[in-house]
């Protein structure tokens, strides 16, 4: 493949900010020693062995589980939203997309923080719940709150790619299916949904990856009670200073993400757009 001259700055960018850090993380993952002193490094898979313990595997399992559930919820909620928006006239459509995106103009941390006041014991939601008879429900500092935070923050990442595929879809195909006698459900499941798969795949990837690696949402809304793999990695880098173990966990997480991406792209048999080129 020949690169355009314009391509070189991107290549340098890629090298400095993606390739080298990735190599460094891999290097740290397979060594032990004082994180500050390269001369003390020695090759070892000790940190991988350390990770294979019920505690850390449990954390990984919980992270993957929560990320999976939140991705599923995003899909179930997001697909109808995308479908509804795509059916509207362009003018209304643009307004609706804008409404979806506007909350993202606010800082991510701030938006998550706002949930603290909503979910707290004296928060509005809890008050409403106790008003309708559901008293003593604890909404904050548990896995449900973390899930809520994930769905709330990542939902637009599911809606937008699906929406973008749906609007580009050739409406003649839908009409042809209707002409040939398909009912509405058949049109959806046999024509619209299969054609929108590339968008769905992108949406799943774009929700699953940030969800499985988040540490802010689980820290804030989970009250640091249920640690996720992201928190564990943060802890190694920020408080414990064991960059080696932190890197090991990052690599393991990356392998998981790659595997899940490979798995989802398998469903995308047509390789239409290959999950990319949607924006």
């Amino acid at each position, binding site marked *: 493949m020949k690169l355009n001259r314009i391509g070189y700055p991107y290549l340098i960018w890629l090298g400095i900010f993606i390739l080298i850090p990735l190599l460094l993380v891999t290097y740290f993952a397979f060594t032990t020693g004082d*994180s*500050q002193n390269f001369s003390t490094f020695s090759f070892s898979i000790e940190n991988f062995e350390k990770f294979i313990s019920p*505690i*850390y595997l*449990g*954390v990984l399992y*919980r992270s993957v589980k929560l990320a999976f559930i939140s991705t599923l919820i995003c899909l179930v909620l997001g697909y109808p939203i995308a479908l509804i928006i795509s059916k509207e006239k362009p003018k209304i459509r643009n307004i609706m997309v804008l409404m979806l995106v506007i909350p993202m103009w606010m800082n991510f941390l701030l938006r998550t923080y706002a949930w*603290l006041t909503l979910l*707290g*014991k*004296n928060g509005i939601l809890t008050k409403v719940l106790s008003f309708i008879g559901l008293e003593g429900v*604890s909404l*904050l*500092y548990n896995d449900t709150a973390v899930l809520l935070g994930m769905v709330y923050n990542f939902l637009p990442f599911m809606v937008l790619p699906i929406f973008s595929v749906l609007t580009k879809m050739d409406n003649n195909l839908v009409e042809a299916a209707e002409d040939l006698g398909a009912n509405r459900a058949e049109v959806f499941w046999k024509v619209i949904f299969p054609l929108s798969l590339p968008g769905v795949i992108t949406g799943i990837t774009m929700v699953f990856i940030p969800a499985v690696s988040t540490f802010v949402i689980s820290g804030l809304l989970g*009250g*640091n*009670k*249920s*640690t996720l793999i992201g*928190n*564990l990695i943060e*802890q*190694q*880098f*920020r*408080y*414990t*200073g*064991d960059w080696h173990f932190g890197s090991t966990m990052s690599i393991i997480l990356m392998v998981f993400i790659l595997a899940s991406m490979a798995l989802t792209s398998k469903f995308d048999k047509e390789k239409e757009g290959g999950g990319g080129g949607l924006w």
Partner: protein
Amino acid sequence: MKNKILIMLAMVLLLSVVATGCGGNEETINVYNWGDYIDPEVLDLFEEEYGVRVVYDTYATNEDLYVKMKQGGSSYDVVIPSDYMIERMIREDLLMEINMDNISMFEKIDDRFLNLDYDPDNSYSVPYMWGTVGIIYNTTMVDRPLTSWGDLWDEEFEGEIIMLNSQRDTLAVALKKLGYSMNTRDIGELEEARDELISQKPIVYAYLGDEVKDVIVGGEAAIAVVWSGDAMAMMDENPDLEYVIPSEGTNLWFDAMVIPANAQNPEAAEQFIDFMTRPEIAAMNADYIGYSSPVPEAVEMLDEEIQNSPVAYPSEEMLENTEVFKDPQDIISEYDRIWTEITSAQ
């Protein structure tokens, strides 16, 4: 039309970059402190008097600070760690000796805060604040007086307890409950404390840092483990709150100002430390944050109520059953491992 707006936007962006880029001639000092641990007005006063701009940054725990200092990339002129962390930093040559001749206010500090174990010759640190760790609880939500760390394991309080998201402090609670020293070097005892904390997890509401103040003041939870100064600040806002030093004994801590070995502006750092020790400034600061000042003249300037408060200024006998944290030295990695296991457990 659209282009014009774009160009204008680009120019504004460019200008802001240029604007923040210049003004580099002004003398600056980088201060790194705990969150919520200074009266911001004090910084303005310092800037005015010395013409030195203060770049102020905060951290949440001693470990956070340590990693940031150790792993470089940042250079601070004054940081304010606690006793055991100062001991570790001195041991690892991360600190610069302070020329006490430049700290004219040094003599104002009460002798009992000088030459402590963490800095035996008192050549690296100048005390900033001190205090204890205890339990704060809301008397309208808890129907009996709490007296011991063991109360934090009482299932009656499920979903009402907030623990500190801080390694040493939280381990100390469990170690003291079990009747061990909070400076234990026995891995078996540490693991017992770990199991104790894991068994407590289901009834804990959350592990928090500075956020605990809002939660307790707002009555969102009834009980929390807090530092005495934070307790003062919370009780000031909500009179239903009560602070106790548990019967098993607790941690007596000291936070002191130190100058990192790689400081860029040690002279200004010494000026800053001197300024903070000045009685009227120390009083202003202590009054604002609620913590206890080691400068007797400053304490005398505070309200009678604060001066006589057993929370902020406990009597000698109340402090009899206390321990000061020590640096675990060679077994730090064990502490780290055990803390990771506690936070990871479900």
